[in-house]
């Protein structure tokens, strides 16, 4: 066991953690945007946005950490992934721009207010879709020959990646609706509750469809699930996910326990993510680029790893503190005083 063997494994964990944090935290903010069309008026959209306004920027930063961390720890994967997925990444970035500035501009605008509301909704939707497409393309795999990518500019375009794109839009919407149950009351909360049950059904259906499709992909990333008896010790993951979805379904309409649906959605996402990561491991880009192929020099991974050990707990600490500062229900008239 040398540093060059162990460090990439640890870094796979760190990058995975960063991406998961991003998916969970920006997921619910993007979900609010995806659900924006269900706001009955501008006032209600103000309310929805105000539940996330103080924290969205920190949530989005996990994406930047994912990008920079990938460059630091797995530069070959960073280079290959982003240059082959040029157009979906472009779509994601542009959509993120509109979503992000909408938080500032919409509250500054008078006549243009509905336009920035639309920018918020469409920006969130296309960000989610592009991220789903990127995920789908990654799972499908990037065939290489002598380090060169075999497919062209549209190599990522496939029925499967379109499916994962749409699936993630609904997935984030579910995070958004349960967040709103947690953070709002009365009319707004009722809207969120009413949306949650159908979303649970749709998301479970998409997850089943994607899972059923995986064994048939060329990348065979789920092959391990059915080989050499792995199935039995991996089986708890999908079973737990199903149980989790059932509990979420029941919690969605139950009055009084407003945090439960959101927490159950978070754990549902964690289980789906774990299942996916177990399938991809030990590749970072299926079907052939392993974490050791893509890893940077041990001195790079070590230098940053030392910082991570101290800084990540600090970041999680003050992030937790800021959520505490803004905890509790957000009143519907917030931002109006």
């Amino acid at each position, binding site marked *: 066991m040398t540093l060059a063997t162990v460090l990439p494994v640890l870094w796979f964990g760190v990058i995975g953690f960063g991406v998961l944090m991003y998916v969970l935290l920006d997921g619910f903010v993007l979900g609010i945007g995806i659900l924006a069309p269900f706001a009955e008026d501008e006032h209600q959209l103000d309310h929805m946005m105000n539940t996330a306004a103080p924290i969205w920027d920190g949530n989005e930063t996990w994406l930047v950490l994912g990008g920079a961390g990938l460059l630091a720890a797995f530069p070959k994967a960073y280079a290959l992934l982003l240059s082959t997925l040029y157009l979906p990444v472009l779509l994601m970035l*542009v959509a993120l721009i509109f979503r992000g500035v909408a938080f500032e501009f919409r509250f500054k605008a008078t006549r243009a207010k509905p336009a920035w509301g639309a920018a918020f909704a469409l920006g969130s939707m296309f960000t989610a879709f592009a991220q789903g497409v990127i995920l789908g393309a990654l799972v499908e795999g990037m065939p290489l020959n002598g380090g060169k990518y075999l497919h062209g500019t549209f190599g990522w375009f496939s029925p499967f990646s379109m499916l994962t794109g749409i699936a993630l839009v609904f997935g984030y919407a579910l995070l958004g609706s349960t967040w709103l149950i947690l953070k709002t009351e009365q009319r707004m909360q009722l809207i969120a509750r009413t949306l949650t049950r159908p979303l649970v059904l749709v998301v479970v259906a998409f997850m089943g469809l994607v899972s059923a499709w995986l064994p048939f992909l060329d990348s065979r990333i789920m092959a391990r699930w059915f080989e050499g008896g792995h199935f039995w010790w991996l089986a708890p993951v999908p079973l737990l996910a199903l149980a989790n979805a059932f509990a979420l379904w029941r919690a969605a309409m139950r009055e009084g326990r407003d945090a439960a649906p959101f927490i159950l959605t978070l754990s549902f996402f964690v289980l789906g993510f774990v299942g996916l990561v177990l399938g991809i491991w030990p590749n970072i880009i299926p079907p052939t680029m392993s974490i050791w192929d893509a890893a940077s020099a041990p001195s790079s991974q070590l230098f940053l790893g030392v910082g991570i050990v101290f800084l990540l707990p600090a970041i999680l600490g003050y992030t937790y503190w800021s959520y505490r500062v*803004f905890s509790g229900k957000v009143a519907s008239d*917030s*931002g109006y005083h």
Partner: protein
Amino acid sequence: MDALLLSRIQFGFVISFHILFPAFTIGLASWLAFVEWRWLRTRDDLWRDVYFFWLKIFAVSFGMGVVSGIVMSFQFGTNWAVLSERAGNILGPLLSYEVLTAFFLEATFLGVMLFGWKRVSDGLHFFATCMVALGTLISTFWIISANSWMQTPQGYTLVNGIFEPASWWAIVFNPSFPYRLAHMVLAAFITTCFVVGGASAWYLRRGVHVEAATRMLKLAVAFAAITVPLQIAVGDAHGLEVGKYQPTKLAAIEGHWRDEGAGDGMPLVLFGVPDQLQERNAYEVAVPRLGSVILTHSWNGSVRPLTAVPASERPPVAPVFYAFRVMVGLGVLMLVLSFASLWAWRRGTLGHSRWVLRGWNWMIPSGFVALLSGWYVNEIGRQPYVVYGLLRTSDAVSPNITAAAVWSSLIVYAVVYAIIFGSGIWYILKLFRVGPVRQPPKDTQGGEKTPARPLSMPDEHVDTHADGTQGARA
């Protein structure tokens, strides 16, 4: 045009837009920390009004910096895959440290700064402001370190064409880093200073917000009178460093094509039209020996001329040459204005001297233009290399992107940035028109659960009080 040239245009475009906002917010964050500190110490409500006024402008600028910055963090992978693969070992950890030590700090405490006014104590709110200001400076530290390493690389070993770190100390504290860091931080502070002073002068010329504007203008004048001369000194030292490590860049800055005769010293080319093919300057206006004095601090010294290296090793001279003169010219104007303002202050005419106020007003964009010019000198001057002397820009571009794909992204970025930054600047201008209006005391601002959003209160819709009168809150 091929994917390489288009990628270069795109990178230049997105980073030029991006840098304007961090440059402004680096200075603004420290300014806000100063203003809030004064309010805490004096409890003079005028300071609080000034704080909230700049806080709104800060929020919009910071937002635009964030969204254009995310584009930057993926740009290396999408368009410069070979650079990422070869230098990722070194640049990746530096950029990741920027995220870990600065971006999270800024983003999290910005939320408290903007929305936590009534949820945390005054002291804690001030702490949040300080953390944001600290975050902007830490961010500058890492990104300038990464850029400087690409300008003056050291502390690495080359293994199969890949830069592997050998000494992180040598990498982070590479030779050009201290100069560039000092130059950039001062540039950001000066940029903000001229916006603060310029806006104040504008209010004074119109006779609105007089008390706040006078206070801010005096601070701007004092700050400029100290930092502008300091910046000129730092720039001079930076120039000497460039002469040592990147002599070809310095020769391009000076339009210095070939050596003079022995003992003649080097002239200072004030103006000319550099001609890359003919290897000379047309219409040259030069002062004998002044180049030697400035660049080598001696009477006979000289720097290595452009023709000492093959044409394929030279940067495009004209843009470097012109951009440098724009930067220095603006620096001189800033110096003149700050000393003239000091003089007016001494004579007690600062608040109503027409020419001084007009000067500050006109100089509002000066910091931004000077800063961009300086970066053009830095970045065009290092061509044809992206890692100086080691990796050519033409070898760093992604191999698997097509010209059509980069055309489409370039057009998309141009359109989107025009909309976003056009709107953003429009909203900032509207905030300037409203000016620092009176804020209500803390305990009358809304209900218990309200996240006190100082920047989005509908009764302060920024176009409703264009006359800048006080008491805007209904």
